[in-house]
């Protein structure tokens, strides 16, 4: 590399296309004058350097130290807001100059707002339809917004219709759960949980023997409790709420008893559960005769 550079310097102006010749450019005969200038400019720069050399340590020449020296003046890296403000302060002039605004020229006639010469009483009942039609379809903008509103309205109507489907594929809210005799006293029938989410219990409440249908939703946060035969209680796996066989809460955070579904004896003697009605104990609804079947 050094050889090539040296060769390029030696050939001077005779080989203009070489990129390596560029550094040699100041040595060209026509460029002698400008070449002298940098030399003169170098003088004042050299003085402080010499001074620092005199003061003891020789100025370091490696790249890192030069970079460090260059960075000393300006802080390296990004400048924070506070620093920027501190930097900007001294450059600010002491007295802020007020910008003088020249007075606006008087408005020409054509720019003045037009006085409405039309009297207000021209709008009659007859022109109402025309005005309405103009507001809705009078311009391309009005047509666009009108059609947008119409589309939205239709979409909303469609959505409302969607909420009432023609066919509902879900288990019926009224269903039969077998004959009352099939339940032995104190039995909790769990086989309807998977399909209907209901326990059929033959037990007693306030001393009265009865059959009732308990909704299998925990009154705390809505998990499905499990019936624990050994402990004779419903126990929720989510937060540990526990309910007696009659559905009354006794442990954990559940604030109120399990809810009952309406239950009745159908015409054929089978028990019929109606999930569309629920009965809450804390509202005193368990005394409602629709909430149980006496046995």
């Amino acid at each position, binding site marked *: 590399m050094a050889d090539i550079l040296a060769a390029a310097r030696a050939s001077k102006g005779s080989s203009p296309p070489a990129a390596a010749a560029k550094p040699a450019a100041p040595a060209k005969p026509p460029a002698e004058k400008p070449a002298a200038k940098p030399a003169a400019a170098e003088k004042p720069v050299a003085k402080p350097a010499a001074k620092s050399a005199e003061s003891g340590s020789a100025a370091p020449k490696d790249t890192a130290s030069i970079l460090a020296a260059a960075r000393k003046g300006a802080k390296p890296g990004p400048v924070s807001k506070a620093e920027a403000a501190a930097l900007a302060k001294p450059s600010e002039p002491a007295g802020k100059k007020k910008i003088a605004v020249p007075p606006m020229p008087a408005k020409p006639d054509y720019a003045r707002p037009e006085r409405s010469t039309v009297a207000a009483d021209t709008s009659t009942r007859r022109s109402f339809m025309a005005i309405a039609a103009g507001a809705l379809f009078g311009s391309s903008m009005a047509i666009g917004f009108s059609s947008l509103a119409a589309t939205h309205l239709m979409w909303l109507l469609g959505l409302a219709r969607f909420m009432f489907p023609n066919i509902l594929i879900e288990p019926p809210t009224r269903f039969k759960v077998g004959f009352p005799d099939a339940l032995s006293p104190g039995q909790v029938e769990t086989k309807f949980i998977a399909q209907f*989410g209901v326990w059929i219990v033959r037990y007693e409440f306030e001393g009265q023997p009865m059959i009732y249908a308990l909704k299998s939703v925990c009154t705390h*946060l809505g998990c*499905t409790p499990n019936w624990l035969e050994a402990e004779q209680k419903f126990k929720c796996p989510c*937060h*540990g709420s526990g309910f007696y066989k009659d559905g009354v809460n006794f*442990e954990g*955070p559940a604030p*109120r008893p399990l809810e009952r579904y309406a239950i009745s004896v159908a015409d054929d003697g089978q028990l019929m559960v109606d999930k569309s009605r629920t009965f809450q104990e804390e509202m005193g609804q368990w005394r409602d005769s629709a909430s149980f079947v006496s046995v």
Partner: protein
Amino acid sequence: MHGLPPYDLFLKQVSGFLGTYYLLLAVMNAVAAFLLWRGERQRELCRVPIVDFPVTPALVWLLVSGFFLLISPLAYSGDEQWMALISLPGSVRSGINWMMNPTAYTLGSLALVAAAFLARRFLVKPWVAWSMLNLSMLLMGMSMTDQNFANIVTKPDNVPIVGLIFLLGFFTWLATYQAVQNDDRAKQGLEPLEKLDSEKVLVWPDLVYTELICMVALTAVLLLWAIALQAPLEEPASAVKTPNPSKAPWYFLGLQEMLVYYDPWMAGVVLPSVIVAGLMAIPYIDFNKQGNGYYTIDQRKFAYIMFQFGFLVLWITLIVMGTFLRGPNWNFFGPFEYWDAHKVEALNNVDLSEYFWVTALQSSRPRAPEGSGELMKFGWALLREIPGIVLVIGYFAMVPPLLVVSSKFFQGLFIRMGFIRYMVLTNLLLMMMLLPIKMLARWTVNLKYFVALPEYLLNF
């Protein structure tokens, strides 16, 4: 959870992991010993009497490494008798199970955090921290031969939580270490360590390179993790069958634990919102200008203690409890206890109104007469719950002024902050204290709700 595999088979399964685990511990300590030995500072602890050989920290950790190296083949053997040597004795395990219940666990973790705060100058010494790490790792290895413990800890869901415990311990230690250093420097009139290292770095390349390296490393870890630990598949979802136990994602287990003590709208809506709002309010409440940009404990003791209490005791330990100690039916199980779905725990809970009217006044709870209107019913319900309502209102309205009167510290806060800011601060603190208060009331007197208005879905 029906039936565990035979014990010898289980030991065979766990032996490979345990052997490697101890081997890694040995390597870890050997590396530490090597680094200490290479280090410039050689501290002499004592000298071996006869041969006059200096005992240095490096030698100690080398011996620890040798110990782990010795028990590694015991674990690899998978033999019941050999592995009994490196297991926790049965009596210790049943003792821990017997001692563990929500009360002991929560109070114990509170005591641990308090002790760690008081003894922080001792705990931040690197050799103490390293010993504690080794001890906890050894304890964990010795517990892994217990089938019930291993079953829960090695569940793919729970493995990250184990990692989280160690990671959290490390970061808490690191922050405390730096804080103690800064506090010591402040006493000598020096500026904090963070201020010394104030040179700014460039986004490119310094930051971007770091981010790139982190990204690659994280992706690699996630890949390995996904390959090593299979995602757990549970039974098909069903609206009428809830898995038992049914657990929230790990980061919500603190909330789920809160739900054991409070009504859903309280524990699921109000208190979480208060947590978020309270965290957002901190900059407006905090008037302490110290500790900005560096770690310190002494200069902001109140803020530090409050945060550590809320975060470590009321959040992290509840997550750990929910992950490892809550089993079927959300019952509490000791770490070495079989998760028996039929465990019976007597948890008869009683509302405050019943305690007040029935137990204290020997009468019955006020009840609206038959056929009364809605408004009358509401009035009677309010009358029934009047003790709880008075208590709750008094708690939020009376405690802040009482604190001002009784405590010099809160007096200072009140003067510095003014009425509104002081009330916001104290009410946030009181909100935070609601959880431990309710927990305590549940454990001691089986209190269910202070205010129970199930008719209006309002319970507190």
